[in-house]
């Protein structure tokens, strides 16, 4: 519940503050968001599995975001930024799907 409230608060804050993303962070924010989504789904699944742990959740959330951004940054330095960000999105997308499937099976038995 608090998580959902937090999500709403975050959205409202984003709408209210209307921040501008610094130019140097712009390529990384979308990737970081996808990585965070992956961590969230993983967290929900772990919760349903009954093995949720906030510390692991926090660490996996942050490390996902940082590693994803780092990969894209590295790709940009190597000149393959767009390809690597595609790769990251694909991998994270697969993970999100698999987590979503697990959650679905927990909740709907299907």
């Amino acid at each position, binding site marked *: 519940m*608090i998580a959902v409230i937090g999500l709403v608060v975050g959205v409202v804050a984003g709408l209210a503050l209307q921040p501008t993303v610094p130019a140097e962070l712009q390529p990384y924010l979308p990737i970081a968001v996808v990585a965070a*989504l992956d961590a969230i789904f*993983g967290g929900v699944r772990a919760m*349903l599995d009954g093995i949720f*742990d*906030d510390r692991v959740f926090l660490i996996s959330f942050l490390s996902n975001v940082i590693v994803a951004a780092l990969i894209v940054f590295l790709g940009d330095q190597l000149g393959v930024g767009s390809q690597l960000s595609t790769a990251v999105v694909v991998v994270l997308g697969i993970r999100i799907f698999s987590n979503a499937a697990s959650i679905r099976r*927990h909740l709907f038995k299907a």
Partner: protein
Amino acid sequence: MPDDRLPSDDLADQVADDVVDGPADDPVADVHEPDDGPQDARSDEAVDAHLPTVDDAVATPVEPSDETPGDLGDDHVDAGDALVVPAVAPVDDAVRTAPAEDVSEAGRTVGTPEDGADDTLVGPDDDEPAEGTAQPASLAPAPTRTGWRALGHAMAPRATRAQLGAGVLCALLGFAVVVQVRQNDETALAGLRQSELVRILDETTERSDELRREVTELRTERDALDSGSDGQAAALDSLRRSAIMQGILSGRLPAEGPGVQVTLIDPAGDLQPVTMLNLLEELRNAGAEAIQLGDHRITASSSFTGTKGHVLVDGVPLRTPYVWLAIGDPSTLSIALQIPGGAMATVRRAGATGTVSERDLVQVTATRVLLDPRYATPVQDEE
């Protein structure tokens, strides 16, 4: 029964299964060997459900182990933990749901007669089948409740560290999502790759150049219309200046200015036409703008002919002393003429004598009459 569920699992699960299969299989197989059929089937299912192990968050069990040694710390300890549940359960909110399931599961597993010792080893799959999947009919009700119950349990607002942490992270995520979405909407350019940006920049630059050209043209036109009389006057002025310049160069007009006077005395008649030509070229090289020899204006069409001691300029004989007048930078001209091995040296070697004097004012008064070219006509300008 569970077996026929496996094929129906979606791709992701299958993949996860594959990954998990190796490590998970061995202990499970060993453990359940003595058990009856259903148990084996369940172990398959267990492996299937065990796929969460792939996930970060599911890796959890390893983490809490340092806090509570028995608490889901290790897969193998898991079952033991499940049995110890009453003691462990309060420890961590996040884990609380698990023990509940574990209890039932452990109970079931233990329930089988010969299982006592096995139980600890059954651990890895222990919590999985309970919530994960369709189990044998007897197990079904529990899992059905569990998934939603876990969700509802988690949704209940409690100010625990886990809930607050998740809340903060979710707030962060929501914030980032909104920011990114807005960013994407607002500045489409920021999302573009370098090549696209370069293309757009090119187009913009091209367009801008075009417009700038147009501005220039229109401004010129406006100026021309605006000051027609001024323009005419200016053109006339320019033409006049041009005419003067051409006149001096072609020898049509007298000229004056700083320069040098070169006097050659050749009593013995030793100078050849080529010597004079040398001197002329040296003067031109040094930047002389108007040159006069004797009372002849020397121009591009002047010629030196004749023989040694009998030099003709444009067909007219010269007489010693030969006096050159040249307008240009005096020191440059003077130095150019007197360099070793240069024009004056040649003159002296031929047996004549010569002097070069710099003057502040040299008057080139001789002129030439120019004939209109008979054969050559100007090339029409492209524009």
